[in-house]
């Protein structure tokens, strides 16, 4: 039995999962965002009957189809990885993930596969209304699919609606609705889907700008931009709103992630939000006296982090050191436990699980071999008793022993239940192991926020010039929109880095760290598959870009005279 898990195995497995997720997330947001834009365009066609809008919608639909086809099923690789690389995790949570992923699979297949066919094959074959409904239902199917995946992810960030069954060593769903509509899952869904809308809007505005820069497809490009930039403004506004909700969820349920996002080591009342900054690379320990920053500029709204996190300007925000040392008041009024106390409780939970199974095995033995155990017990009783008394005493002794075992089972179960919320801490060697990579989380958060803000501004400026009919002459704006496609994608990826890196070392928050979740594989085998994926993904990406750019170069071929 190998008890120490190779750190490089964890790192490579995480890297492989991250690579697959990054790649998958290149396609999904474009599907979600571009889908809405094309559906809006088709709706305009439905309302006006103008063939121009039909051709415009069909062109974006073609690009949607290319992206959909290349991206389809890439997410399944994540499920392969769960079964191979993360088998303890898969077993531990199987019952929770089963329902959302099964619903996702069924919905994805029936809704998307059915209506996408009508969307692509049904022009002039079904009624305009039925075609439009199919287009919207295709997008609805994709979005609902995303919902169930994000429910699963939300559960990992905030495990709820389940009970741990020690008999089968699995978490079992207690309330489907608590899992499906947990506040974290809902917020994650809206924030993530909205980031997809932003990418879709930027894609349409950027590609249309390319046509304007090439002085072709002018009417098509300007009309597309008008739809995309308004959609982009709406998506950005809603994204800020849901982002605020996410910050509050993180502050309440994942305070360590929030502290890492802010590079906050020492907490305080009324904490400022860091605007930009450079972390001090010489800060080696969370509790040393070195400054966390070489340089930083706070957002010029005093105590803004406290307000964003807890809705009060003077609210206390714990830093990394506070979270590890404990003793600070939490938002629910309780006092936070220290990391050492949590580790102690985690170890109690794991040892209770072990004791529970030992006692259960004894109980099973007593059931199966009752007669021979009774005989053995009888033999231990002295000959002062007559034979009848011997048998009765053996029965009593047997019942007593059995009762003691039942008491042990009950005690272990109670100890496990009382400490299960800290179960994962039982695998943590030192408090500092609970700190996620602060630098990556901090910078990724700034990238997401700064790029998000920039895109919001860009959509507002573009909307202004677009509706003033001046967009066509603003080449700087066209270039900015074109290049910002990559910035929008980058911002979305950075968001996932914050969400996932910021919650390390947990596979499931507080319940299971990656070191316990991982399978006992050799790191080299994971390295091999990592590079296979890298090659496969790169080939697919090249194929997509080639087909996509060919379609874009060919253009919508709308006669604009």
């Amino acid at each position, binding site marked *: 039995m190998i008890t120490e898990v190779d750190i490089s195995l964890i790192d490579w497995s995480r890297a492989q999962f991250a690579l697959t997720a990054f790649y998958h997330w290149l396609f999904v947001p474009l599907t979600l965002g571009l889908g809405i834009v094309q559906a809006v365009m088709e709706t305009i066609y439905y309302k006006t009957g103008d063939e121009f809008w039909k051709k415009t919608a069909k062109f974006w639909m073609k690009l949607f*189809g290319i992206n959909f086809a290349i991206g389809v099923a890439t997410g399944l690789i994540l499920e392969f990885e769960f079964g191979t690389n993360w088998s303890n995790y898969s077993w531990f949570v199987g019952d929770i993930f089963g329902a959302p992923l099964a619903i996702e699979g069924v919905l994805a297949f029936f809704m998307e596969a059915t209506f996408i066919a009508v969307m692509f094959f049904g022009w002039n074959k079904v009624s305009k209304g039925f075609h439009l409904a199919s287009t919207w239902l295709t997008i609805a199917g994709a979005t609902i699919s995303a919902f169930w995946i994000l429910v699963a992810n939300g559960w990992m960030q905030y495990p709820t609606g389940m009970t741990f069954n020690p008999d089968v060593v699995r978490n079992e769903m207690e309330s489907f609705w608590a899992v499906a509509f947990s506040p974290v899952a809902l917020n994650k869904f809206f924030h993530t889907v909205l980031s997809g809308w932003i990418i879709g809007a930027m894609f349409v505005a950027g590609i249309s700008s390319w046509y304007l820069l090439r002085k072709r497809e002018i009417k098509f490009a300007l009309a597309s931009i008008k739809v995309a930039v308004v959609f982009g403004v709406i998506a950005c506004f809603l994204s800020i709103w849901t982002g605020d909700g996410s910050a509050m969820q993180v502050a309440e349920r994942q305070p360590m992630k929030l502290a890492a996002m802010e590079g906050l080591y020492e907490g305080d009342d009324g904490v400022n939000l860091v605007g930009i900054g450079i972390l001090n690379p010489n800060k080696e320990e969370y509790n040393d006296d070195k400054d966390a920053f070489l340089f930083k500029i706070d957002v010029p709204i005093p105590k803004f982090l406290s307000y964003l996190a807890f809705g009060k300007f003077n609210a206390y925000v714990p830093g990394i050191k506070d979270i590890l040392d404990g003793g600070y008041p939490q938002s629910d009024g309780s006092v936070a436990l220290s990391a050492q106390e949590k580790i102690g409780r985690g170890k109690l939970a794991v040892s209770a699980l072990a004791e529970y199974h030992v006692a259960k095995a004894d109980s099973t033995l007593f059931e199966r071999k009752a007669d021979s155990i009774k005989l053995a017990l009888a033999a231990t009783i002295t000959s002062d008793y007559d034979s009848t008394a011997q048998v009765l005493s053996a029965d009593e002794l047997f019942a007593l022993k059995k009762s003691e075992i039942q008491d042990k089972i009950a005690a272990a179960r109670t100890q496990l239940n009382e400490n299960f919320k800290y179960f994962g801490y039982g695998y943590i060697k030192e408090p500092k192991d609970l700190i996620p990579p602060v630098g990556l989380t901090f910078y990724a958060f700034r990238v997401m926020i700064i790029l998000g803000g920039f895109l919001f501004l860009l959509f507002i400026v573009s909307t202004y010039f677009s509706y003033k009919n001046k967009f066509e002459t603003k080449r700087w704006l066209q270039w900015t929109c074109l290049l910002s496609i990559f910035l929008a994608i980058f911002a979305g990826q950075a968001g996932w880095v914050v969400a996932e890196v910021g919650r390390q070392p947990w596979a499931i928050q507080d319940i299971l760290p990656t070191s316990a979740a991982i399978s006992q594989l050799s790191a080299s085998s994971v390295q091999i598959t990592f590079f296979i994926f890298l090659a496969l993904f790169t080939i697919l990406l090249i194929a997509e870009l080639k087909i996509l750019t060919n379609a874009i170069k060919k253009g919508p071929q709308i006669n604009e005279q």
Partner: protein
Amino acid sequence: MERSIFKRIIDFYLEGFRNMTIGKTLWLIILVKLFIMFFILKIFFFPSYLGKFEKPVEKQEYVLNELIQRAK
């Protein structure tokens, strides 16, 4: 005689697939990708780790032992 709804749906799909242009390339990519994923990656590189155990109770005992031992 009017064609049955079933036949019309089949014809709808067949005609749609026949008239595809770029879609044919995309379907080829999808099929190659699915083949690589399910017949190469899944079989040779991503077997179910717990699949080596036949019975659920064996999987359960293995994971239980792993979870207990790794906390030591």
